[in-house]
């Protein structure tokens, strides 16, 4: 089994508690991988350490133990290969939309001429349908438009992978929907590897190839990886009409509502093996939801997904 494109290996992060010597262990000994071209979502309750993982992956934070290998390189700091889309858009308010994207482009290509940088930035602003508003400052843009600039800025540096921390959670449902459509379109065009945090089960089902379920913190772990068994070509409008939609959704909701907490409270719950089990909820009877039917996933079967051992009892929830 070859190493995944993003390989998280024994990742541990502890924070010193402000009161006294005790340490807060956010998570301990995490192992999981994301394949090249794969769209992975992380779901878990607030405070379980999702942003902490993403920040370590981005190189903005360092793990207490363990490491991440991304695109064959040990993650030891931020890199232009790993673009981050922040929850708050994090645009520079003194620069126009174009200026924000240009800042990123000129960081990626220091040798380019102004005209080259501008043309490249405009191309990505057009990709998120912001040509025409490129001279507006972030304060003059709507929340959705700001997030689009953030996406354009991230894509414009042509990163190997895209890291998104709840990119749409601050937006209203309609805007969120149109941005999700845009992410789908962009990804279909680029096959970008994406690691995304979300609180929204439907968003995960719409966008992700696989969904990492994290237990509640502290000492959170990835309890299981849910392979998205919906057809590859899926739209927001058709999502809930898919036969596998409700089994998937119920599985995720059930995890968030009861199991994430129950697992965190049960000291025996964490299995000793490193790789989280892969679950494939389908409309078929429970015994079908195993790796014996990888084609039922409707996904490009990544090698480590197919080879992962799956406990059928866990699949049944």
């Amino acid at each position, binding site marked *: 089994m070859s190493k995944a494109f993003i390989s998280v290996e024994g990742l541990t992060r502890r924070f010193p508690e402000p009161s006294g010597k005790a340490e807060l262990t956010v998570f301990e000994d995490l192992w999981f991988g994301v394949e090249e071209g794969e769209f992975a979502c992380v779901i878990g309750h607030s405070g379980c350490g999702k942003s902490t993982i993403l920040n370590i992956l981005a190189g903005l934070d360092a793990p207490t133990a363990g490491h991440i290998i991304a695109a064959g390189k040990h993650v030891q700091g931020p890199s*232009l290969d790993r673009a981050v889309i922040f929850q708050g858009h*994090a645009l*520079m308010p003194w620069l126009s939309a174009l200026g924000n994207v240009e800042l990123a482009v000129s960081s990626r290509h220091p040798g380019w001429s102004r005209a080259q940088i501008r043309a490249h930035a405009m191309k990505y602003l057009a990709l998120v349908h912001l040509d025409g508003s490129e001279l507006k400052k972030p304060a003059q843009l709507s929340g959705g438009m700001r997030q689009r600039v953030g996406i354009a800025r991230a894509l414009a540096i042509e990163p190997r992978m895209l890291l998104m921390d709840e990119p749409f959670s601050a937006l209203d449902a309609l805007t969120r929907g149109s941005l999700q459509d845009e992410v789908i379109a962009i990804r279909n065009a680029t096959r970008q590897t994406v690691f995304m945090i979300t609180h929204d089960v439907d968003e995960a089902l719409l966008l992700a190839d696989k969904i990492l379920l994290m237990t509640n913190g502290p000492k959170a772990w990835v309890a299981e990886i849910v392979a998205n068994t919906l057809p590859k070509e899926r739209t927001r409008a058709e999502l809930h009409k898919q036969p596998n939609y409700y089994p998937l959704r119920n599985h995720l909701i059930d995890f968030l509502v009861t199991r994430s907490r129950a697992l965190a409270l049960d000291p025996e719950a964490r299995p000793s093996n490193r790789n989280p089990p892969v679950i494939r909820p389908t409309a078929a009877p429970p015994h079908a939801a195993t790796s014996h039917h990888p084609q039922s996933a409707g996904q490009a079967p990544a090698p480590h997904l197919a080879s992962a051992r799956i406990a059928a009892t866990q699949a049944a929830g």
Partner: protein
Amino acid sequence: MRIGLTLRAGLVSLLLFGLFVGAWHIGTAGTGPAVKMDPEYAKLMGATATQGKSAMPGPAEVGARIWQHLKDPFYDRGTNDKGLGIQLAYSIARVLAGYLIAVAVAIPIGFLIGMSPLMSRALDPFIQILKPISPLAWMPLALYTIRDSGISAIFVIFICSVWPMLINTAFGVASVRREWLNVAKTLEMSPGRTAWRVILPAAAPTILTGMRISIGIAWLVIVAAEMLVGGTGIGYFVWNEWNNLSITNVITAILFIGVVGMALDQLMARLQHMVAYAD
């Protein structure tokens, strides 16, 4: 009919100005009986006192003097008789020299303090002690060590304008939003590029606020400093005209000091507006 607020405010301003000038005129026009006084003192005080007229010039007199100065601002008839324009130019040059040196010192050090918690702590006691010292208290020391009254005045301007800029720069730099710095990091920007493209524009409004406070203080202090060091400048002019008992010139100079101070402040306000951003 509704009249615009600006227009109404302007009318009220005019009315107040008229009332003030009127009161001033009435207050200084009185020709009371001549006061009996020591002839020596009477000679010193000049005709105004001996003839029972108020020593305070009236608005017409001051107006005529202002006009006279405006017509010929740059005449030079020796050390003690130079045009107001020349005197103001000396003062402005000193203020700008001291102020620009202060900018060159305060902004880099402010960056250092704002970016390094260590330097922030290490320099804090010095700043806390030096900041409340009246800039004029430095004057004797400056005169003794520098041995040049003009440069000493510049030094005093430097020392009084450095603190607001230093403190505001440090504060502005320290409070640059973390997410902007994270963006710079993920874009692999060098520290220099981050300082220039992210921290400086982010902190610019705070820095400019400090610079605006500084120029105001510098203009306040230059008058006092020039009264002490003498020779040239608007402060020296005021003091010299007081010694000449020319209250008319003193009042004229006061007005010009106000106008120049306002112009400097408006200039900084313009710059402040240029770097402001809506968040």
